[in-house]
């Protein structure tokens, strides 16, 4: 057992004999893993969005400016009970102004317009589309919403759902080829580093063979080295991804999107680390065997 731990330590120590080579390999693995992780995060978030909006369509209803607060209160209270409606969000002109100011982020101050907001009262009505004849149903819903008292305009994007579905379809189709491509790049980088390490240590390995070292004794530290590079590269990539996520988390959390970007689930993060460690080991194995 002590030999086992000694060889693990040996594998890691050996890598630091050529620190520049190690740094460049880790950088390459980190960047490739970062790309892969970012792609996975995109797919994950698209999946979340399609999951939450699957089959739904959102109608934006704008009222005329002369509508009174009592009239609005009465109409808005009846919206949720309409057929097919799953969610309703309403905005008074001042609330709409607040959302608008938020969307400009911190640089624009619209406080001075409070009480004199030029924006119309608005409702975002999310409906579940029936399986068949969804577009026909949506057109009927527009007519019903337009028929409500003092409604000025009703809009909806009938392509919204189709577009999202198409995006997810496309990314899912590209997922395996892109992932495979990135893994091959990682394998080549790690394999090449191990190969260079073997070349640099050719004499030493020959001596080890001649003094009776078993194949496992010689190869195990090299495999550990490959795994270590994969682990370190993947961990750094996840750190970078977390930084990226921190920066873009609320980028789309503005009207009308209201999308908060989620970080990769824990299981995906662990999978990235595990897969890269395995790729590191396998590519080292191939380099050693060749």
């Amino acid at each position, binding site marked *: 057992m002590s030999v086992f731990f000694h060889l693990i330590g040996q594998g890691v120590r050996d890598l630091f004999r050529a620190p520049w080579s190690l740094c460049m390999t880790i950088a390459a693995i980190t960047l490739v893993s970062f790309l892969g992780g970012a792609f996975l995060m995109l797919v994950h978030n698209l999946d979340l969005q399609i999951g939450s909006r699957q089959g739904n369509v959102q109608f934006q209803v704008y009222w005329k400016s002369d509508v009174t607060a009592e009239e609005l209160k009465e109409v808005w209270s009846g919206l949720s009970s309409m057929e097919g409606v799953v969610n309703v969000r309403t905005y008074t002109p001042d609330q709409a102004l607040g959302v608008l100011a938020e969307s400009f982020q911190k640089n624009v101050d619209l406080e001075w317009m409070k009480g004199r907001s030029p924006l119309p009262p608005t409702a975002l009505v999310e409906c579940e589309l029936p399986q068949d004849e969804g577009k026909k149903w949506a057109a009927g819903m527009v007519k019903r919403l337009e028929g409500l008292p003092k409604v000025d305009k009703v809009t909806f994007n009938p392509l919204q759902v189709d577009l999202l579905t198409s995006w997810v379809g496309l990314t899912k189709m590209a997922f395996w080829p892109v992932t495979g491509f990135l893994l091959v790049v990682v394998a080549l980088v790690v394999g090449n580093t191990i190969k260079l390490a073997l070349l640099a240590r050719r004499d030493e390995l020959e*001596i*080890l063979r*001649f*003094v*009776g070292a*078993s194949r496992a004794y010689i190869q195990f530290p090299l495999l550990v080295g490959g795994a270590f590079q994969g682990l370190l590269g993947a961990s750094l990539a996840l750190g970078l991804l977390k930084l990226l996520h921190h920066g873009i988390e609320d980028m789309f959390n503005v009207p009308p999107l209201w999308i908060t970007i989620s970080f990769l689930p824990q299981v995906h993060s662990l999978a990235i680390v595990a897969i890269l460690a395995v790729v590191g080991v396998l590519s080292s194995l191939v380099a050693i065997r060749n």
Partner: protein
Amino acid sequence: MISISKLSYSFGRQLALKDINFCMKQGEFVFLCGPSGAGKTTFMRLLHGALPVQRGKADVAGYDLNTLPESRKHLLRRDVSVVFQDFKILTKQTVFANVALPLKVRGIGQHIIEKRVRAVLRSLHLDKKAGAPCEELSGGEQQRVAVARAVVVKPKLLLADEPTGNLDHELSMRMMDIFQQFHKFGTSIMIATHNREIMARMADARIVTLEDGVMREGCALGGGQS
């Protein structure tokens, strides 16, 4: 210890060893002599499993080299130690680390390693250099490190390829004394050399000659017949 029958080896079209038949008993001391390029190093490398058997049969220290897979050659090398002509030591590492290496790869405990390495270094007058990196040693000292590394594991068979090639007369004689000591403890020893003086010192050793890849008993360099 060694049983060779009709062994031939060629590098491309160049035949290095021709139909060699050779036997060596356990505990024997053999000098393998012959001029440079006669095939001595090739023969030793074959015995150590560094070259594959192309034709003929070879059995060394109980291992059939015709069937021994690459993955099990380390077992042969644990019973057969070699002192190489070019030493093959880790020059960046210390004398102690070099001599301890074969024990470490066998998984022997640090306490035993410490004891055995110190003892061998003392017998080869290297104990004061134990902590010195090998690159700081003279050629003769490096050669003694190579010998120390070979004998520290108490091998069944010790192969030495020109072990006195880089040593002056006095050190050569001292080196032979060391080989004799190990021989007395039962290690079979084969030394490839063309140094007649050291062959003369071991009057009861067997001498075989390799010339143009052909082996025969006795010395063609003018030394005594065994």
